[in-house]
């Protein structure tokens, strides 16, 4: 079976592509399980609570006023598309946690969306410059179907970990599997070892 495309499909695989992924090019497919909500930034806020020294909530003007941070790189969806060389703008999760403080017993987080979507992550996977709260994509406001106006970004893991329409982050002393993680998908979701489904 030959898949060589004489019109220019690469014969040498882009080293930025994890196994089993393909380059979506300029495309940015949409994957969600629920109705895209209409989020009003006048009333939206981001809450960080749980095992922190002081829980707090940021309004839209407050979060915009924090020191900004951008991500330039690749993202990978479990459905096998990757988007290479893209960019997002927002604030680092580190910045938020600096303001709340982190209790020593905290080991995991649950990120939750205003829709009720949840996803779990080890704390070490969202600290040290690995995770963001973002509202810009390639210099433009993040559209609703891509999680706008504000979503989480954890680009080193499959994209279901990057909760759309983010409402908050809760720090826990245990792992609490989220929406997809209790419905057949992998606990962590590392694209480089193809942790797509339970048991992978």
């Amino acid at each position, binding site marked *: *079976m*030959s*898949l*060589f*495309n004489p019109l220019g499909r*690469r*014969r*040498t*695989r882009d080293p930025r592509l994890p*196994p*089993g992924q*393909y380059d*979506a090019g300029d*495309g940015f*497919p*949409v*994957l*969600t*399980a*629920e*109705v*895209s*909500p209409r989020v009003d930034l006048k009333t939206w806020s981001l809450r960080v*609570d*749980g*095992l922190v020294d002081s829980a707090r909530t940021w309004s839209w003007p407050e979060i915009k006023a924090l020191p900004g941070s951008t991500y330039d790189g690749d993202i990978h*969806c479990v*459905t*096998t*598309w990757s988007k290479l060389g893209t960019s997002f703008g927002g604030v680092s999760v580190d910045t938020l946690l600096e303001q709340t403080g982190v209790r020593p017993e905290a080991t995991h987080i*649950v990120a*939750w*969306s*205003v*829709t*009720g*979507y*949840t996803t779990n992550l080890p704390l070490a996977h969202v600290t040290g410059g690995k995770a963001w709260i973002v509202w810009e994509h390639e210099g433009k406001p993040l559209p609703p*179907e891509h999680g706008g106006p504000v979503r989480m970004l954890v680009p080193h893991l499959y994209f279901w970990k990057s909760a759309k329409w983010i*409402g908050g982050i*809760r720090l*826990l002393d245990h792992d*609490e*599997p989220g*929406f*997809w993680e*209790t*419905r*057949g998908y992998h606990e962590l979701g590392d694209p480089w070892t193809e942790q797509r*489904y*339970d*048991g*992978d």
Partner: protein
Amino acid sequence: MTDDTALPDLPSLPSPPGSPSLPDLPALPTLGPVTRRVPPTGARREWQTAEVVEVRPETSQAVTLRLRLPAGAERHVPGQHYVVRVPREDGSWAQRSYSVASAPEPPSALAADGRRHLELTVERIEDGELSPVLHALQVGAPVTLRGPFGGWFVWRGDTPVLLVGGGSGVVPLMSMYRYWRDTGGAAPLRLVVSVRTRDDLYYRDELLAGDPAAVSVVHSRRAPDGDPRPPGRLDAATLRPLLVPDATCFVCGSTGFAEHASRLLVDLGVPAGDVRVERFGPS
């Protein structure tokens, strides 16, 4: 693994311990209880080789492949998908998800050797990696796949449902519809399929032969002669009389269709939490 006679008997997971989180904090929001952990054992689903036993064109752009699964294959739940892979020239694999179109077979329908069959309907994406290869397959060809997967966009046949599909998005809904029809249709069900023209309708003969109280076809570009509804995008006036009380709504189609149809449902008063969405297309 339970090989059961009726889907509602498939092992359900009890709801997780209600988001224990931390005792003095409000519970986290949720989209609803877990209906099924997939796979129930937590074991990895390995790649398997199935065999094409029938190839059936659905439209000029879509074919249905009927596959004979290897021995011991698990029964799927309507709405679930399989992942299919084919080798690339550079030695890597290309893989995509395809929803199962057929109803899960009851044990009484299995072949004498106990082997299961299922059907995948594949839309041809012109510059796609998988679909041109799958469209070229003939009877007897091997297909590498793993599954079934999916624990959200699934229906076990025991609750009222409204199924809304756009174009190729009818595929997982067809598994639900067929299961419902073949098991006597106890729960209220309505299926609404939106296509550009009659020629774009998958499973045409089967759907048009269905009970008109259960199956509606909406044409967005060109309606057949005699269709009382002029061609046009699915709209609230069309959808309102088709709403099913207390139904879970399953919406499947392109991103544009899924956004539009799910928003119509919410604007018609369906709680957003009762709408499950799956997006199809070249992803």
